């Protein structure tokens, strides 16, 4: 019997590996860290993420594949890895004071968050459907628990159980889709699927499999009509967890979504592009319109995140190199912008008492002018208002759509972003144009939150005014 040697290439999974190791170290550290020093576990987690980001940087341009074609380190995956690491690091900065104020400062919080990050990185760099599935599960399971992390709060538990039940439900569809694709092509490797489809036409079984895969991805990135969990879960989960999952899950899931559909299934593009275009229209429209009447900031941002998934889907419909890079840029822009918005919301909270109703923001500009300014910038960026990151992102995506003959989709996108301005400005109006509500005095913004906010806002402005370097990085995203 021959000696079997597995194809081990630790270097290309270094970012995920470092994050995992960090998680385990934090888990062990939790045992020896006294309650009042828990924040050090947060710092340790950030350090691990920074190292992982450096590892990702060092792999830039490597374009290496490993573990029998299961994962790849291409610039596309690395860009997403960096985005995910950035979102995690910023989320942890926000979390350290937050979980302390809410008396949930357990080291496991960071462990779960890091494990989720590892799953996201796996998902973003996976080139095999089964690894994508495992990445999906590894990112989801910790999030189910994180959503329910405020166990004493029935809303948090409700978020957890809804997310879990619907997530597991959609996972089953996704898995069944993988099974059908496996049956129709004899493989789950993306490159081999593409090769197989290049030789022979698709079959009805494959179409159903592809449809089910789309349902699975659509659930994770919250596309209409698979988005129902989003507002409720975002609303109920601890705000920092909401902030994290609103951006990072999208980055990871869209990464796998693009890789699977654009790279492995171009042969069926005629079919799925039409479906995706319709989903994009539904998603943008529903997300924006439903957000119009929301009075709670978290719910509003939840609907907004649905709408943004719709915009990003346009880039997939475009199915071009520019579409791909525009999606990457958009994800990065959305990450910093949305985290900035959530950061500002957290900054305006009064210890454990959060201000989540839009009317609670009344007069914030007078008490916290800089936080108000930061929130305004982030909301304008979300609305696609120039000259912030969101504007450039939308321009790139709509441009990619127009280039590939999907101008009508871009038109609907533009129309939608016009509608969105209305609800994004509501908190701004409250902050600047209302008499201050009671209870503002004596609230100090935690330094770590301020730091995260500063990083986010500077990024939002920089990505809007000087987007060229980020666009160049995103453009290197070669899919394998």
């Amino acid at each position: 019997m021959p000696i079997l040697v597995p194809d081990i290439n630790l270097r290309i999974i270094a970012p995920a590996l470092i994050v995992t190791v960090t998680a385990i170290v934090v888990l062990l550290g939790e045992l020896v860290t006294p309650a009042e020093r828990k924040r050090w576990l947060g710092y340790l987690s950030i350090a691990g993420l920074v190292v992982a980001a450096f590892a990702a940087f060092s792999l830039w341009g490597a374009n290496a594949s490993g573990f029998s074609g299961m994962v790849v380190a291409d610039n596309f995956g690395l860009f997403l890895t960096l985005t995910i690491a950035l979102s995690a690091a910023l989320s942890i900065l926000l979390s350290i004071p937050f979980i302390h104020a809410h008396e949930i400062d357990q080291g496991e919080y960071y462990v779960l968050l890091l494990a989720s990050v590892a799953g996201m990185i796996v998902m973003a760099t996976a080139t095999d459907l089964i690894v994508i599935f495992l990445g999906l599960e590894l990112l989801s399971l910790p999030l189910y628990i994180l959503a329910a992390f405020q166990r004493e709060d029935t809303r948090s538990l409700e978020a957890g159980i809804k997310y879990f039940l619907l997530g597991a439900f959609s996972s089953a569809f996704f898995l069944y889709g993988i099974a059908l694709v496996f049956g129709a092509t004899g493989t789950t490797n993306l490159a081999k699927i593409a090769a197989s489809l290049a030789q022979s036409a698709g079959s009805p079984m494959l179409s159903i499999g592809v449809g089910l895969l789309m349902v699975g991805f659509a659930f994770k990135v919250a596309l209409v009509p698979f988005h129902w969990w989003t507002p409720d879960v975002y609303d109920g989960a601890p705000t920092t967890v909401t902030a994290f999952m609103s951006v990072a899950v999208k980055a990871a899931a869209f990464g796998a979504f693009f890789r699977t559909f654009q790279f492995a299934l171009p042969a069926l593009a005629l079919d799925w592009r039409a479906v995706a275009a319709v989903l994009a229209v539904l998603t943008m429209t529903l997300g924006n319109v439903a957000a119009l009447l929301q009075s709670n900031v978290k719910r509003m941002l939840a609907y907004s995140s649905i709408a943004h998934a719709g915009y990003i889907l346009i880039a997939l419909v475009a199915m071009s190199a520019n579409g791909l890079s525009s999606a990457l840029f958009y994800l990065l822009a959305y990450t910093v912008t949305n985290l900035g918005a959530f950061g500002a919301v957290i900054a305006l909270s009064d210890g454990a008492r959060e201000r989540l109703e839009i009317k609670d923001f009344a007069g914030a500009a007078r008490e916290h002018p800089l936080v108000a300014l930061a929130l305004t910038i982030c909301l304008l960026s979300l609305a696609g208002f120039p000259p912030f990151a969101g504007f450039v992102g939308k321009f790139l995506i709509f441009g990619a759509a127009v280039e590939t003959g999907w101008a009508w989709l871009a038109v609907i996108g533009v129309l939608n972003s016009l509608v969105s301005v209305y609800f994004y400005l509501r908190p701004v109006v409250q902050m600047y144009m209302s008499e201050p509500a009671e209870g503002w005095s004596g609230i100090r913004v935690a330094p770590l939150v301020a730091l995260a906010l500063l990083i986010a806002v500077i990024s939002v402005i920089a990505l809007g005014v000087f987007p060229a370097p980020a666009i160049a990085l995103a453009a290197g995203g070669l899919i394998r």
Partner: protein
Amino acid sequence: MLTVNHFILLSAILFCLGAVGVLIRRNPLVMFMSIELMLNAANLAFVAFSRYLNNLDGQIFVFLILTVAAAEVAVGLAIIVAMFRARENVDVDEVNELKG
């Protein structure tokens, strides 16, 4: 003659039964069991394809999925228990504080 289609049709039936089970039951435990049924349907499809494609990968997937299911069950049941502790009730229809 037993063909792959026999097995896939069975798996399709089980999958749809599981999906319907998720929708019509109000006990989260039974909903969750229905989801397990859906996963099992997928497993059956994998093994059937594996056998008729002479490709062992499908069996490996099933092995991996078994593990994933185990992890999922642990987490899911923990959440359900936590919810029960908080509200002494396991009807998902009662869990609708968050809406709109």
